[in-house]
């Protein structure tokens, strides 16, 4: 038996993978070979040490974070029609509806084109709930539309309510995170920190807004005071979305 074969037998024995005849063969070698015995003991001890590593409980809010993230990204269930199925379904609809859909689609497209030509640089259009004093209980999703850049701001609180995680999600895949922990002001993914004499302003990662041109957005904390946090989403093309959250 070569050294390589012996090493394999020892390893497979540790994994409980040997047949009775292989086990007899290994036992015989171990009885005669002191260095093989030493290696066997070492590999077995390694396996025992690794297997004794205890599993750690995930953060209490992990499942909620996942749920909130999924619901904020995909409002609809995963199964989707392929383009072929959609085309087939469209062709199978009654002709009145079909021609009606094409006609209406043409009208809407024309109107949008006309609006775009008349207003090439529209004023910042900011919408979203900017109400103050919203009490954050567990996790909340705030959709925003900043100057045409759409996305969601997800705020997730831990069980104790001591830590808040904000996620800015734009398009389908880009997320940035900023965590505020009142006990030790922990910030992650921070690119820039500014302090201008007043409240500390912290800017988090810049997020590319996919599907909305080349817009970029920033997520920032501003006015962190008492138990109220103002979160601001700002688009580089102009416009901001503010959300003030009361933390208890």
């Amino acid at each position: 038996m070569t050294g390589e074969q012996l090493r394999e037998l020892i390893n497979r024995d540790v994994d409980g993978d040997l047949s009775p005849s292989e086990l007899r063969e290994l036992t015989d070698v171990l009885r005669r070979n002191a260095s093989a015995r030493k290696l066997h003991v070492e590999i077995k001890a390694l396996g025992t040490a690794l297997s004794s590593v205890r599993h750690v409980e995930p953060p209490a809010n992990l499942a909620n974070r996942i749920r909130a993230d999924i619901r904020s990204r995909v409002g609809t269930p995963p199964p989707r029609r392929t383009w072929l199925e959609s085309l087939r379904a469209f062709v199978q609809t009654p002709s009145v509806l079909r021609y009606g859909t094409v006609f209406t689609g043409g009208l809407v497209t024309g109107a949008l084109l006309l609006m775009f030509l008349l207003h090439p640089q529209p004023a910042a259009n900011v919408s979203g709930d900017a109400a103050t004093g919203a009490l954050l209980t567990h996790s909340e999703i705030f959709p925003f539309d900043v100057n045409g850049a759409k996305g969601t701001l997800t705020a997730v609180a831990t069980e104790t309510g001591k830590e808040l995680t904000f996620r800015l999600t734009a398009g389908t895949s880009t997320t940035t995170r900023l965590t505020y922990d009142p006990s030790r002001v922990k910030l992650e993914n921070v690119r820039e920190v500014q302090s201008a004499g007043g409240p500390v302003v912290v800017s988090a990662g810049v997020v590319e807004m996919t599907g909305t041109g080349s817009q970029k957005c920033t997520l920032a904390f501003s006015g962190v005071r008492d138990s109220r946090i103002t979160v601001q989403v700002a688009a580089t093309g102009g416009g901001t979305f503010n959300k003030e959250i009361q933390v208890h």
Partner: protein
Amino acid sequence: MIEHNDEDLVRQCRAGEIKSFDLLVERHQRAIFNLALRMVRDSDDAADVSQSVFVKAYENLERFDPQYKFFSWLYRIAVNESLNALEQKKRFEGLDGKDLAAETADEKDDETVREERRIQDGLMMLSVDQRAVIVLKHIQGLSYREIGQILDLPEKTIKSRLFSARQTFKDILRKKGVRRNDRRTAS
């Protein structure tokens, strides 16, 4: 209450029952978090990886092949996401990583903490490919076949990689003060 298996839940989810996916999250979050934790070490990063894993799984559920086990597919995403997280982390090297052993040390004695820290340190010094097989085998308790499905490699390669990883790990534990290694080995 009826206990549904993973395949039932995946089917329900594909039919539009988003709550079925919540049950899959509840069921697998601990295993995925621990896999990520042993791969990336930092618990915040591991939570982020876990979140990405489930989001990606949900978004790509229609691509899941039911002839495989759902958890194998989930683990495969988790390994890939952990590798991505390690790559990203390299760019932000210098950020504080939490001491994993110390985090879980509340009710343990110093000897146990030291031993766990030694093991985690050793894991971080393995190449990520070797780390993955060690974690999947010893910490997740999977078979060669399951690991092969997760890493998309033949069982023979898994065995060979596992055996050499053990040898390297054994040598690492003997030494002290070796640097972390997030490089990949050639397959």
